[in-house]
């Protein structure tokens, strides 16, 4: 159970952290909350020569919202602070639901959204709601920073488009459009602690009863969180009758590419994609029409 040996750095500024990452090279690993990295090290799947902890960087844990710019979540903001932030609870309930579905109280007191994204598990709960809401992530490097859509961030299980030497510094979510609503729901074998066997995020915008725009993202049923684009086309520009919602679920199940593993069979996962897609469509519409 002992951890492998490593050097530990706790820089006080982002600049210092970026220099350290460059200096230490590929054997260095950046750590926010540590809840994924520690487990990987305990299981000897990760043996970094050095850990560069971000928690000492002043202000990197800030969560800011205003109705013009939307929401910015700093890389070291704890999951618990994201889930309970009054503006997130009010304007981004799908994100609150996703974060509260993760792990347990202790891990939510330690873990971060940025860490959840950088860990890049296909089952990452924060990814679907953030992707459907059009989130972008800021990646900083010694040469400057870039901001990319979260949609383009994941490249495989545990893999992202981040370059070596880059650090994710924040996540940005646009302000919710008028008459739009989002939902995230997940299912797993146990109600607590277990990672999602299937997760579905939906965001939809309406004009009257007609859906103007919709995004559907499926978690844990493909190598990366998956946009269900055919499902979106099916639902866009239409009134969501109960028949159409039923068809939306079936179409999403069609688009999912799950595998069978210790958590669930591929067949069951497809069925649950249909169920959760219907439920999230209904919830997103409810929130949109109420708002």
């Amino acid at each position, binding site marked *: 159970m002992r951890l492998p040996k490593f050097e530990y750095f706790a820089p006080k500024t982002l600049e210092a952290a970026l220099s350290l990452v460059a200096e230490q090279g590929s054997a260095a690993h950046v750590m926010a909350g*540590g809840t994924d990295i*520690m487990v990987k090290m305990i299981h000897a799947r990760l043996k970094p020569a050095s850990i560069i902890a971000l928690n000492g960087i002043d202000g990197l844990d800030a969560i800011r919202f205003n109705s013009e710019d939307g929401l910015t979540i700093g890389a070291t903001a704890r999951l618990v602070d994201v889930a309970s932030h009054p503006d997130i609870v009010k304007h981004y309930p799908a994100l609150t639901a996703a974060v509260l579905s993760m792990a347990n109280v*202790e891990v939510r007191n330690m873990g971060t959204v940025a860490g959840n994204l950088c860990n890049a598990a296909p089952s990452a709960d924060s990814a679907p709601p953030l992707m459907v809401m059009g989130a972008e992530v800021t990646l900083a490097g010694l040469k400057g920073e870039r901001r990319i859509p979260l949609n383009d961030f994941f490249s495989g299980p545990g893999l992202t488009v981040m370059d070596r030497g880059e650090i994710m510094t924040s996540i940005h979510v646009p302000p919710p459009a008028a008459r739009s609503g989002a939902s995230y729901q997940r299912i797993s074998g146990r109600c607590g602690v277990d990672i999602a066997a299937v997760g579905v995020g939906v965001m939809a915008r309406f004009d009257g009863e007609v859906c103007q725009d919709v995004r559907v993202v499926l978690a844990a049923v493909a190598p990366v969180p998956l946009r269900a684009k055919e499902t979106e086309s099916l639902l866009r520009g239409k009134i969501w009758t109960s028949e159409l919602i039923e068809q939306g679920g079936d179409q999403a199940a069609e688009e999912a590419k799950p595998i069978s593993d210790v958590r669930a069979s591929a067949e069951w996962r497809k069925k649950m994609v249909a169920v959760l897609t219907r439920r999230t469509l209904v919830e997103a519409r409810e929130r949109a029409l109420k708002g």
Partner: protein
Amino acid sequence: MKHQIKFTVNGDEYSIAVDPWRTLNEVLRDDLNLTGTKLGCGTGDCGACAVMVDGRTVSSCLTLAVSVDGKSVRTVEGLAPSGEELHPVQEAFVKTGAIQCGYCTSGMEMAAVHLLSHNPSPTEKEIRAGLSGHLCRCTGYNQIVEAVSVAAETMRNPNQKR
């Protein structure tokens, strides 16, 4: 290279040199002899190692000791106000028979104290959610949930005779 860190545990100040790869759990148990905090799974799944850092419960098996530099740690040894008197949560655990083998107890109690500090009147569902991630292999969950609700009542009415 060892790091010199300063932190408090249950109000006592410590200044020690630790290797960066040692967990808070190891340092509490092996260096400070505070063995009330247990180690269960070692991967953050079972809750047995829960302690508070700056008032929030964390898994001490997933916390590097170097990372608590400058922070305040509270363990199960720091719950009771004195050697004579137990914390209301501990008293409720004894009274309701919520302790069987005892291995999960310190983690459960830390979670209960944390929950009640945020929510003095939790429903049964909220208690179960607050303790979710804490495994009791004796499966005495009902008594544990009852203990938390008894403790909540005691803490809401501290002047009533228990």
